[in-house]
């Protein structure tokens, strides 16, 4: 059987997948956006996070399920995202590419 090649990820897609992985079973769009903001110290646009999550789901990297409704959300449920194995492969591949490209540039790009 042919092996499914993971798709190439963009930078923001990689951040979103990593955030989903870090949040485990508590990864819903708002939490993902806040996780990215906390980790990267940069603003994560909510619409961009939503578009990216939908796209990653369409690509077969994430799956989603709806949780229970909560009063603080006006009785609405959360949509939780979970990574599929292909997402892990894709994230690994993207990080390897970055490491490969950064090889030998430690002195130049090492964080101070």
């Amino acid at each position, binding site marked *: 059987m042919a092996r499914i090649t993971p798709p190439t990820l963009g930078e923001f897609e990689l951040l979103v997948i990593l955030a989903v992985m870090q949040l485990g079973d508590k990864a819903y*769009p708002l939490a993902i956006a806040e996780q990215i903001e906390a980790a990267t110290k940069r603003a994560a646009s909510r619409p*961009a996070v939503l578009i990216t999550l939908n796209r990653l789901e369409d690509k077969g990297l994430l799956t989603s399920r709806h949780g229970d409704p909560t009063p603080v959300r006006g009785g609405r*449920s959360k949509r939780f995202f979970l990574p599929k194995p292909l997402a892990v492969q894709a994230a690994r591949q993207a990080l390897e590419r970055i490491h490969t490209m950064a090889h030998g540039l430690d002195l130049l790009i090492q964080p101070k």
Partner: protein
Amino acid sequence: MTPPTGPSRVANWALRTLTSKADADAVVGDVMEELGASRWRLEWRMCQLIGAAAITSLGRSMRAFRHMARDARRSLRRSPASTMFILLVLTLSIAAATVTFSVVDTVVLRPLPFAADGDLIVIESRASGAAAVANRSIGAYEFLTFRERLTSITGLAAIEQGRFTLTPVGESQSLVSTRATASLFDVLGVPPLLGRTFMADEEAVGRSDVAVLGYELWERRFHGDPRIVGQSVEVTSRALMGGNTTVRSLTVIGVMPRGFTSPFLNGTPKPQRTEIWTPLVIPADERSGTDRSRYLGVVGRLRPGTREAGSDSELNAVAAAVAPGSQNSVLGATYRFVPLKDVVIGPARPWMVLALTAVALVLLIACVNVANLQLSRAAYRSRELSVRASLGATRRHVISSLLAESLMLSLTAAGLAITASIWGIEIARNALPPGIGRADEISLDLRVLVAAITAAVATGILFGVVPAWQASRQDLVSILKQGSTTTVGVGRDRWRAVFTVTQVTFVSVLLVSATLIIASFIRVTTADLGFNRSDLLVINPIGVPIAETRDMLTRLRQLPGVSSVSTVENGSPPLMMAGFGGGASGTMVNAVDAPPGKEPFRVEWRRVSPDYFVSAGLMVLKGHVPEQMGDADVVIDETTALALFGRQDAVGAELIGGGRYGRRRVAAVVKDVRTNGPERTAWPQTYLPVANQAQGYVVVRLNKPAAAVVPSIRLMLEPMQPAGSRPADIRSVEDAFRNITADRRFNATLMGLFGFLAIFIGAAGVYGVMTSIVAQRTREIGVRVALGATTTQVINGVVGHALRYIAIGLLVGLPVAFLVSRIFRGLLFQVTTTDWSIYAIVAGILIGVGFAASLWPALRAARVDPLIALRSE
């Protein structure tokens, strides 16, 4: 705690239309959790998220479309023969529809290139009597009076075309010129692109050497130079009658915008776009009414809110006051305003509507045919569709996928058809009959493109929807269980029968219409005109001095291939009036010994040489034409003889006419001549002896093909013409006849083509359906053969099946065709819509075609080996 309020209902609704309810709720929940207290920030965030959902939705739709297109492409590639055939049928019919629409749109549907074209009118007069034809030429005196006295119009302009030619000095090709009053451009409501148009004081000798150029001439000759205004152009002006030539230096005062042309009003055989306008100078004797020559076309603008009927009565009152005793007044002519659009589009409208209806029918036939083929294809794909269903495809998916196939087919066909239409429009433009206004403007423009693509999409949906719906209705799981590759299904069988019968119905309606039009054309071309039009030439010996006429005739008679030569003065030879222009004089005549109270009779008269009747092949019925006709002799036609003298012998009797006609003795009675062609009534004819005072036409009967004789005639005439003169105008009367019948010929050809296309598509449809039926019933046929059915019985079964469809289609189609043909019965000539032979011919053709189309599938059915057939399932 106050429960948090959500976003507005509009925002909620927008989000839910773009995504599922659960996903939309989750998004709203996130927003409320984050910004619940801040109303405006919440609404703003909702707007952003609706945008995000829209982008996601669009992306998903695009992906779904790509997948559907890919599936459709794969599916169509799997059966290339059927795909190619469908593409051929659709391309031909969409191309035919595109070309026809482009012609009809340009000629009939588009507004004229003038401001508020609905208010523009033309003045037309019509004499009383059966042979009266509408006359749109009026005299200068009448025009001036109308302009001064009519209150129902805001402006009136006179134009004159064809009496003078303007040729740039040093060139041989004349410009298409129009002389017009200064009011023309105001009446039409079109300002110049550059400079100005004429002023009223330029309508006078000495001030009239100014010109307004048409855009095309400005571009072609002056390369669009904006400094042309104020420059001079030298032209040779030649009067067509009389041949006076002068060289004029015209100062260009303006250039008209692209596409502008003044309307041709005088029934010019081939309207051309005016290239140059010069002021119309009305001579003093015409202004005073001394000379009442009628050669002006008049276009005016009705005062807004003026009803045409009311304005007609004012027009007639003014006409009666200005012209007592004029020829029109004597003939009891009535005047009326005719919308300019009716004049420009004129008789083309019913033909165009017929052509458009016919091509729409062809498109419908193609739709039904392709729908039928798609139905058969879907039957073969039952297993594939059931696999898709078992893998999770919903009914909506199946329908969308099959509709995508149909749309892909129709849009590919539209692309091919639009490419083919580029040539088709070029061919149609050149093949259009002369006299069709705006034919030179026909092109593949945005309107036509939009129409073609709309037609293609509509076609795709029309032929795709039933097969898709049918395919999605099947119990796909049971098909999968059966393991059969094809299924028939009662619903599909019924639809197939309905489609085939509908197709035959449409084809029979189109064929009956086409046959009626073609039969009319055949009757027109074979109608008796009263003279022999073949091998007959008419020569206008331009510039040959009148003194040399006798010598010219003698030398013409000596040429090989010429059997008879004669001359006509004061009028055109037969058919010339309708075919090339020209005319005849009319007068009222009566028998000298007519009883008191007998009404005078209107006739036309021409002066002819005695040989004319031999040259024209005009049969002498009574008496004989003397070799030298006396000055007081007249030859009359049988209608005149009957009207004036009844059953008495007209030969030797005397008649009297008005003016120069005088009192004359009848020398002979000849056959009636239909000078205006077979379809238009003509005034009765009388023939007077030539006076040799005016330049006339020469009529030449040939006994060799014209192509062999015309060069020697030209060679003979050339030395007799003045230096620099235009070559003599030599035309065959057969050409004149072709001019008269050009619109019929064009439409008969068009209807013939559409009919042929319909038969081809219909036959292919019957063939396809029968092939599919045979293929799907191989097992059943095998069982029958195994049970003892003979080859003949199998063939009869298949052919009989097809003929049943044809018979039902004819039973519905022929009565519909009868009703439809009554709508255009005004276009028929000597053929009636109740002519049963037409219906018999169509029924015969369709039964023959149905038989032929089903024969091959029947032979295939007869070759079915029962063992193989039963084992294959």
